[in-house]
């Protein structure tokens, strides 16, 4: 992966290639489906990973997918979250609590993957919910 011109900045090391690499690295442990999505597809915008430890598994996804990105804390309606941004503006968002969790009191953290570079076979944007259960 080399640097490239355009926009007056260098895309390495936080380019889209880094996110793609992160996805494939994580897929060794959590396989991707035919649409290059993690977990079980629930809808076009949501997938579900069933795990005994939703928060820990969500953190594992976040750590893996955010590598090489520019990380910022955000304030969500349900508490702090984090965004990892790559230089094509693709980004991964870690939301330790989501609306469904706030409503039910059950752990239901989420990781959003928003891909801004098309043509790589990744869905443009979807959310992975981490749901408590037996994997």
């Amino acid at each position, binding site marked *: 992966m080399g640097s490239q011109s355009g926009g007056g900045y260098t895309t390495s090391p936080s380019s889209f290639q880094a996110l793609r690499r992160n996805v494939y690295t994580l897929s060794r442990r959590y396989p991707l489906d035919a649409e290059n999505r993690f977990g079980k597809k629930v809808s076009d915008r949501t997938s579900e990973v069933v795990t005994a430890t939703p928060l820990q598994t969500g953190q594992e996804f976040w750590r893996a997918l955010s590598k090489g990105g520019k990380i910022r804390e955000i304030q969500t*309606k349900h508490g702090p979250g984090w965004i990892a941004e790559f230089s094509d503006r693709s980004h991964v968002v870690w*939301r330790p609590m989501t*609306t469904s969790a706030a409503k039910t009191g059950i752990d239901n953290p989420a990781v959003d993957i928003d891909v801004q570079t098309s043509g790589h076979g990744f869905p443009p944007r979807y959310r992975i919910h981490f749901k408590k259960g037996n994997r």
Partner: protein
Amino acid sequence: MTTVTHTLDQNGLRRLAGLRGQTWRCFGGVQVSDWLTDVSIFIVTDEEAVTITGETDDLDFEGEYDTYATFRVEDGATQLPIAAKAGNLYYFQTGQEILDVLVLRESVTEARDGHTTWTYVTDLGIVFKFADAVIAVTKVSHHTELLAVLRADSIDTLNVKEPSNVWQDKLGIEYTLDRYFIRLDTAPAE
């Protein structure tokens, strides 16, 4: 049919409209990237400052809850000293008068089998117009807090990337996207 309007509130519009005619100094943010993105951007003029922050609300008009991005505009720039220390102030168009402030608004309409099911109206960007340039603070995504600052020679050449790629036509489902600019040349009424 459901219509969801998720736009800047009156206070935000009033703050932005009040910048018209002022002299632009700079913009910045605590963690602005080299490609001019952050989750919060402040604008400084000779007279005042405002901070534009990306936020999300949880909405359920598409059949399931999701987060939808919105702008919050507040008075002041409390993060300015930190941003200055980090070298994250940008002086493009400094000293120029803000001739206009505009909001770029988008409506997305879903139709299933020819029947409209919902319309979502939201703001995509806040545009500051100068004599020979524009600076815009825009959403990177309809669903996250990330903002991007864009620059162009004019509104016509301002290239706000479509963040609506999640709404793609499928068999029996069609999406119609419409964009328009709203001039904030007078402060909106209460």
